[in-house]
């Protein structure tokens, strides 16, 4: 099939090199078109923060595009010396390459196994190649198959089970406490980067209102403006916390802002009885005294709790690697078998067309010579007999070709057929 995948990923290349080799969407389109034109191949480029890979397929050529040419191309496009790239480059061909793409799409080759983004990125790569016209019959068969296999892996194993970002785990906890959010108040304390990411997740829950408080009123206003919330003066912190259902704390304070004593004396008495407060304390050092957590009225989760769950989830995903790899292996074989069957199509078509031509060369003069002596029905009978003879004659070679494809030993038979029947 002459497929070559050449590239580098987070294992083979340092981040500074990956940054230099990354493709912008514009460059990606230009480069794929250039690859297809220069090497007469189908081409697609996958570029993410963790990997850059070139997919080059030449199903009708005698050999795949070489790794050296792929390296030279990468060096040329990014203006880097080729010797800087080559040591970090890996390369796969044919069946290995098919399996590699399936593993990549199924997120088995990702930094965090089971992450969901990569399948979307593979799909975007394929869509780009299809739009550009650099994806031909082979890539048009391979990429959809890889995406289907990825879906199977995600749905049939627990590889994608759970969340692996701290902010998503935080939201999982919030969902264990609350069912709906249209009557809930979120209080954002501080303006840390991690807090903003978690706030983005909380915003997706569509809470009734968001209050933002910060020692710096400007920062509070800035964060509030960014999330459609209301800035609350730092002096009203206790009142705001008493009103909140979810508190997201991410300040840079050197010591706890809310001690158990302060919470008991200044916050708890102001809260409506029976309401639960979820505190997501993702500040380091912690902003809330952990002893206020009781799992009923106050549920407090700090960065250690969230990180622990994240690590548990990652570890749990490892246990699903074996069944996931088994699906990839089965899907790789299915694709290769299918491709072999499809590949025989043009050869069989060419064979039939050549023999049709020979049959016509014999039959047409014969019928012309007998013109006037035969009825139309008799002419049809003779033509039918020739066709039957031809089909019976070709049945053996075609069946042998299909069998050889199943056994993976097709090449020599195709060559023999080409020579025997003088196919172009």
């Amino acid at each position, binding site marked *: 099939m002459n497929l070559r995948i050449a590239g580098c990923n987070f294992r083979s290349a340092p981040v500074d090199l990956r940054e230099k080799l990354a493709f912008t969407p514009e460059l990606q389109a230009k480069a794929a078109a250039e690859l297809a034109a220069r090497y007469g191949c189908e081409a697609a480029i996958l570029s993410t923060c963790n990997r850059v890979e070139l997919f080059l397929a030449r199903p009708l050529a005698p050999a795949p595009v070489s790794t050296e040419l792929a390296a030279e191309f990468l060096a040329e496009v990014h203006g880097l010396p080729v010797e800087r790239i080559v040591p970090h480059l890996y390369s796969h061909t044919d069946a290995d390459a098919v399996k590699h793409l399936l593993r990549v799409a199924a997120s088995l080759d990702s930094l965090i196994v089971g992450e969901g983004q990569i399948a979307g990125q593979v799909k975007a790569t394929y869509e780009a190649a299809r739009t550009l016209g650099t994806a031909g019959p082979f890539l048009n068969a391979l990429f959809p198959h890889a995406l289907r296999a990825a879906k199977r892996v995600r749905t049939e194993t*627990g590889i994608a*089970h*759970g*969340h692996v970002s701290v902010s998503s*785990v935080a939201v*999982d*906890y919030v*969902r*264990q*406490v*609350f*069912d*709906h959010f249209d009557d809930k108040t979120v209080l954002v304390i501080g303006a840390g980067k991690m807090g903003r990411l978690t706030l983005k997740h909380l915003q997706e829950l569509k809470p009734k209102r968001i209050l933002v408080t910060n020692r710096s009123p400007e920062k509070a206003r800035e964060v509030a403006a960014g999330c459609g919330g209301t800035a609350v003066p730092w002096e009203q912190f206790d009142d705001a916390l008493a009103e909140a259902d979810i508190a997201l704390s991410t300040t840079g304070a050197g010591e706890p802002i809310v001690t158990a004593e302060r919470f008991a004396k200044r916050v708890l008495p102001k809260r409506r*009885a*029976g309401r*639960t407060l979820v505190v997501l304390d993702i500040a380091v050092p912690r902003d809330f005294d952990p002893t206020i*957590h*009781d*799992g*009923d*009225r106050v*549920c407090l*989760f700090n960065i250690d*709790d969230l990180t*622990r*769950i994240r690590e*548990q*989830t990652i570890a749990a995903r490892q246990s699903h690697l074996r069944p996931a790899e088994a699906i990839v292996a089965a899907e790789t074989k299915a694709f290769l078998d299918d491709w072999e069957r499809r590949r025989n199509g043009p050869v069989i078509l060419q064979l039939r067309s050549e023999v049709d031509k020979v049959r016509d060369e014999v039959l047409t003069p014969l019928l012309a010579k007998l013109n006037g002596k035969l009825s139309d029905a008799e002419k049809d009978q003779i033509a039918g007999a020739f066709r039957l003879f031809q089909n019976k004659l070709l049945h053996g070679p075609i069946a042998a070709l299909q069998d050889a494809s199943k056994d993976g030993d097709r090449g020599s038979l195709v060559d023999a057929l080409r020579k025997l029947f003088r196919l172009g």
Partner: protein
Amino acid sequence: MTLSTLQGVSHTCFGLSYLLALVLELARLRWPGKTLRTAALAAATVGLLTHSAFLLIHHPSPATPYGSLLLLAWVLAIFCLYGAVHHARQAWGIFVLPLVVGLVGLSLALISTGGANDAAIPAWLVGEKFWGAVHGLLLLAAAVGLSVAFLASAMYLVQARRLRTKANPLDLKMLSLERLEAMNRRAVNLAFPLLTAGVLLGMLMLNREPLATLLTPSLKVLGSYGLILVVAMLVYMRYAAHVSGRRLAVWSLLAFALLVGVLMAAHPFAEAPK
């Protein structure tokens, strides 16, 4: 399926089906997947169908401890299937099925004590007369409400414990505390008036019996009064005292324990089997 085939349906058929469904649900905790879920759902459905057939053929009286437990188990089995379909991703069956299996087991245990003897109950109470039927239906609906409150409370306590220990949210997917608390609230709010009305109606009917029966109130009647008090206490604690969800859940468990006791006690109008 002919009627004669259905007549062969026994407690064992549906009891074991529910038990199998429970085992499969527990297995799902270790090996989550569609296959086990479908199998558990199928086993529970078979249980419900055979249970329904059994009730249809034998129509045990709801006035007997045996019949009331079987009917309650049947309603809860429907509740179980409803939840299994609507909350497919949540751990649901592992909470509801033990209750169903337990009630079926208790009803079986009652057979040996003669609690299944319909003849011991006066005809008017088993539904042949209107008010007897209303009394029975009100109490059955209240029992369903209290059972749902019990389930919501059991789930609430497990969920609260998981939150207290900060367990991985994905190890056991459960409804949120807020949802469970709302389920408990609705169930108790429904059960309280039904229970009160049912018991009051029973008291009125009790007046038709000889004085001796009134002077020696049965365990069932006393238990029912106690149950009303506990449920009233639950309502008070929720709306007046605003106690925490955990304490409400514990009181709901207590109410359910009392309910089972009341259901298992002999009916005041029961006559000694002849």
